[in-house]
């Protein structure tokens, strides 16, 4: 406690002590306030959707397709089916391509080509989705000659791939190099090292990226107008128009009937529940045997 006796230095420290203490508390309060501001819209959206959507939910809602326009009743089963098919098809195309290109960029992409790919990928990730929809329309829809889930899935995969590529690359880069070296020093080949050591260690980040991209594509509407069009019917083939929850919500919102708006809220609630449950499911399925610590 010798420094307290030291008059010159000590009084100076004590003067600024209160200021510094206040600054510390103030910074914490600002952070907390911002979090609250950020959470309010999220909470109120969830509240509104649940409040307005819950009354629409009943058995018929989940097992039947829509009735004729203007006639109340019916359900959104065909839209739920369409959204699930789209998520599945899109993931089938987008997840492998996204992960493998992420691996390329993280493990082999330290060159000019890698730089160009990274830049292009980042631009693609920012692309307006309607433009991607038009692209899919001009290529796949016109080629097949029909609106189709295939065209929808390809358009959504174009949105999905850059997200997964980027998150995979970032996650792999966080894996310490010492693990790669440990593995290579055991005479394990590069590819095995990447798949069994690096990718496994980065699993959480990669899964988060996939989930993020699925949430993103499940909520897309614009590219679907140009590709799957929407439909009153259930899935009837990879080259026929199909419905999706977002399209259904959009069309219902345009109708002048109260029942339609209620159904729309219900569809929105279902969409949120689907995305949320996929997230939880993925977390459970890929849960690590061990908690990673201080790698």
């Amino acid at each position, binding site marked *: 406690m010798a420094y307290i006796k030291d008059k010159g230095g000590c009084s100076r420290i004590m003067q600024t002590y209160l200021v510094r203490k206040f600054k510390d508390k103030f910074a914490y309060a600002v952070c907390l306030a911002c979090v609250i501001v950020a959470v309010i819209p999220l909470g109120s959206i969830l509240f509104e959707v649940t409040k307005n959507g819950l009354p629409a939910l009943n058995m018929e809602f989940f097992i039947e397709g829509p009735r004729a326009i203007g006639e109340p009743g019916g359900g959104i089963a065909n839209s739920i089916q369409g959204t699930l098919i789209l998520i599945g098809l899109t993931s089938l195309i987008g997840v492998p391509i996204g992960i493998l290109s992420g691996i390329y960029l993280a493990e082999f992409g330290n060159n000019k080509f890698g730089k160009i790919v990274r830049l292009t990928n980042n631009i693609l990730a920012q692309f307006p989705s309607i433009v991607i929809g038009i692209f899919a329309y001009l290529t796949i829809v016109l080629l097949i000659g029909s609106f189709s889930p295939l065209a929808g899935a390809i358009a959504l995969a174009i949105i999905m791939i850059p997200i997964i590529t980027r998150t995979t690359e970032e996650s792999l880069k966080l894996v310490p190099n010492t693990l790669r070296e*440990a593995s290579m020093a*055991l*005479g394990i080949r590069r590819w095995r090292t990447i798949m069994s050591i690096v990718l496994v260690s980065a699993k959480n980040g990669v899964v988060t990226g996939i989930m993020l991209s699925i949430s993103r594509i499940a909520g897309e509407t614009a590219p679907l107008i140009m590709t799957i069009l929407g439909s009153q019917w259930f899935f009837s083939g990879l080259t026929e128009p199909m419905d999706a929850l977002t399209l259904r919500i959009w069309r219902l919102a345009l109708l002048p009937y109260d029942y339609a708006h209620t159904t729309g809220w219900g569809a929105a609630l279902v969409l949120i529940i689907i995305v949320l449950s996929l997230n939880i499911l993925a977390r459970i399925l890929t849960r690590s*045997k061990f908690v990673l610590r201080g790698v």
Partner: protein
Amino acid sequence: MIGMNKELLSVSSKERVNQTYKIETENLNAWFGTKQALKDINIKIRANSITAIIGPSGCGKSTLIRCLNRMHELVPSAKVSGKVFLDGVDIYSKNVDPVIVRRRVGMVFQKPNPFPTMSIYDNVAAGLKLNGIRDRKRLDEIVRKSLEQAWLWDEVKDDLDKPGASLSGGQQQRLCIARALAVEPEVLLLDEPTSALDPIAASKIEQLIVSLKRDYTIVIVTHNMQQAARVSDYTAFLYLGRLIEYDVTAKIFSNPREELTENYIAGRFG
């Protein structure tokens, strides 16, 4: 400590009757980008001996041993020239697969680096499993043998399913030694294996290293001159990428030929 030195002396005198060179380098040069890290290294390492590599920071100690199992070339922009003979075969010749070299020349790193997603068992078995060996009985046997060789079996035999990262630092390093031994290498390279450990854990690893000499050729990089004096049969002194002196350890520490070596050992620079 006295007992250990006795054992060390008796083994090395036995070795001297039938000395063979396990590793020989010929004009070995290594670069990082344009910076030359090793300059014309010629060194002959005897089988079943412990060779210590000492020298100040940045003198190329680690680079030298990383050239002995072709790990150096994994660093982007790294380059090697010259020859390294393992049992008379140049490991840098075109038809040699570096992966096979690394299986014969194992390596333990400065910081213990067990695979964080794997159990103790899987850490030891990793080198075999990821090379396609699935026979559970054989794996069990090798895991046990490797852990015994690394003096870790008694401490972990009931916890083989626990994560490797849950062990203490010294245990983790012995786990890494067991992991390296499991692929049955002939040479073991140790890159400052005790510098991240407390003195007790370090001393245990030192004794372990001496015990491994019977079956393996060992090259150890160390910052700690007492450690080099305690464990090694031969010592190489590196300075600014050059091999300044290489001789029997006792001679290096008692009566070095070069003034530079003497100054370094006396602690006049470091």
